[in-house]
């Protein structure tokens, strides 16, 4: 039952803006009216823009004292009934991990933008990397599952921001937009459609009576309905292992039931969550699997390889998590090799290799970060793949 965007927030028209700014507009178009932020390069512009826009669209921005606060303040706002987000990069992302786990455990719908930069630690604050891809999936302790999307252009920063908010409401889960410094800081044309052409998923507030409603009881799709403070439900939300009422119940059977459901609500719906771009997979000998800014370089390498007569297909990850294993397993059966370039020393390639299952080779094109690949590096790997 999606709705369309509130026109108050939507700057319909053609824009020439960078990825960070586009992400902010996407959040606003999706209905986000609260952000608690903390500055960290190269994500800061997203909240700087929100700070400027918020008072004119009925939104609220607060700069908190650190990322620990930023990542939980937005969750308080969600439980007061609004759509909320925060932004960060590597070091801040690490600080946010506990609260990411809290959002997953309490099934708080919210969005985090990670504009990735060189790491580890302070690393390269102003230069790109894609080295938080495993962290976004596994960074907090315990078993939980999340959704992560990778834009490769400012236009996609806008589009996927909206998608992220929609997924978060559909699955009552924190969703991550994994940008990188280049996509965040590159300026390109961004078309913002009229508000009535933007599909927005409203929060699934319950209409049940207080006696009937259970804040953590799943519906047929495995996802519970939402509520907010002030509606008279006397809800209880805790990070402790809890039963369907939300009351702490720290026993193995409840743990088993709860944690398995947190995983299955994503895994059972994975096919609806997968977004990817395929090109000329049919008849390909080698398929390049890439995401984010690297996919732009890979595009060039693919064209160069095709010019040399190599049958190379493209598989661009837009949803990184849940990882689209099913389509990749199918592709693995018919090709010689995957080529996986990424701005890290081996993260998503592990997933590709797992899906290849030994049926196709996996050739990794790593990069420690700080700049993007040269197309020639990826082309060399493609050539090696078909040798």
């Amino acid at each position, binding site marked *: 039952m999606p709705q369309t965007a509130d026109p108050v927030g939507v700057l319909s028209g053609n824009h020439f803006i960078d990825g960070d700014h586009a992400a902010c507009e996407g959040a606003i178009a999706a209905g986000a009216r*609260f952000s608690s932020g903390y500055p960290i390069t190269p994500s800061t512009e997203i909240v700087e823009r929100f700070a400027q826009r918020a*008072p004119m669209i009925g939104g609220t921005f607060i700069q908190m004292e650190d990322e620990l606060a930023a990542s939980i303040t937005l969750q308080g706002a969600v439980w007061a009934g609004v759509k909320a987000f925060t932004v960060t990069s590597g070091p801040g992302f690490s600080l946010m991990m506990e609260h990411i786990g809290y959002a997953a455990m309490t099934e708080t719908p919210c969005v985090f933008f990670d504009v990735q930069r060189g790491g580890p630690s302070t690393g390269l604050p102003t230069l790109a990397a894609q080295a938080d891809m495993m962290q976004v999936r596994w960074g907090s302790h315990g078993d939980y599952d999340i959704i992560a999307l990778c834009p490769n252009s400012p236009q996609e920063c806008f589009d996927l921001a909206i998608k992220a908010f929609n997924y978060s409401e559909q699955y009552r889960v924190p969703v991550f937009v994994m940008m990188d410094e280049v996509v965040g800081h590159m300026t390109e044309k961004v078309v913002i459609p009229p508000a009535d052409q933007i599909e927005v998923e409203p929060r699934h507030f319950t209409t049940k009576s207080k006696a009937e409603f259970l804040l953590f009881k799943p519906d047929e799709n495995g996802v519970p309905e939402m509520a907010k403070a002030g509606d008279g439900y006397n809800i*209880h939300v805790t990070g402790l292992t809890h039963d369907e009422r939300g009351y702490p119940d720290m026993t193995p059977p409840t743990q088993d039931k709860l944690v398995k459901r947190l995983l299955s609500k994503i895994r059972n719906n994975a096919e609806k969550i997968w977004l990817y771009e395929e090109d000329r997979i049919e008849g390909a000998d080698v398929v390049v699997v890439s995401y984010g800014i690297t996919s732009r370089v890979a595009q060039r390498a693919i064209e160069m390889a095709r010019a040399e007569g190599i049958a190379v297909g493209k598989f661009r990850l837009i949803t990184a998590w849940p990882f689209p294993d099913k389509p990749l397993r199918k592709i693995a059966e018919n090709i010689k090799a995957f080529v996986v370039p990424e701005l890290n020393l081996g993260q998503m390639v592990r997933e590709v290799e797992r899906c290849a299952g030994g049926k196709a080779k996996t050739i990794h094109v790593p990069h420690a970060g700080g700049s993007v690949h040269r197309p020639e590096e990826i082309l060399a790997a493609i050539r090696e793949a078909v040798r």
Partner: protein
Amino acid sequence: MSTDLIPINPVEPFLRSERMPHIWCPGCGIGTTVNCFTRALIESKVDLKNLAIVSGIGCTGRVAGYTNLDSFHTTHGRAIPFATGLKLANPKLNVVVYSGDGDLFAIGGNHLIHAARRNVDLKVICVNNLIYAMTGGQTAPTTPGNVITSTAPYGTYDPAFNLPYLVEAAGAVYVARWTTFHVRQLAKSMQEMFAKKGFGFIEVLSPCPTLYQRRNKMGDGLDAMKDYKRNSKIRPGCPTSEVGLVKEGEIIVGKFVDREKPEYLDMMKAHFSQQLGERYIQPSSCEEFCSEEVPQCSL
């Protein structure tokens, strides 16, 4: 005899009765503070539907789970920023933060001072048992010197925070301290705090019989309560610099700070109205909360 002649315990409607009895130890004072809290809510005629309670981790943090209100048991030290998010997104909510000394002042210290600095309209009830009780009795930033704890087996030697002093300096508009012996005064103080807009803070000294008392051979909860009765001095308006605590020493209680300062949302509204005029669109939930007469902020 007819049972409808017997009124129910005033605290009962505020409890998630199906979760009783609670986990707090015999002689622990947290439950006592909850009695005062409920009396204060009843007297204040607070709209309970729009009351949210947020707590952190620790023994006092369990209060949220036992109260029959919109209650949030958050992460260690972060009740205050979560509460800030609730309040800013829906200013109609009355938000109470109910947590312990370790949660609010050690891991949560940074958030506390910033919320006080901003004067966000939150009501903080800090149950101070001078120890990290839930995890087995480790040193807290409020543990006085020469006290045996599980991480100070030879006794503590570092200085303790003076909570009212710290919170006043950070910017709170209402600061008081009571003990779990002062049940009537505590309830009244909570009631006063609920009626006052801005960042309010009440420290409540409470016994921890199982860890603090027992390890230091100070008897049980009742001995601590008698100690509070004997050693407390009610000094309203006492300078907070003078209310620090020492082991088995004098306990100064009372209302120390009650002042006027512009509240965060009022300042925000005033500022944006001034800067943006007609272009300023308040969040829809903000209008009823922010006062019409907004005091000049003293930045």
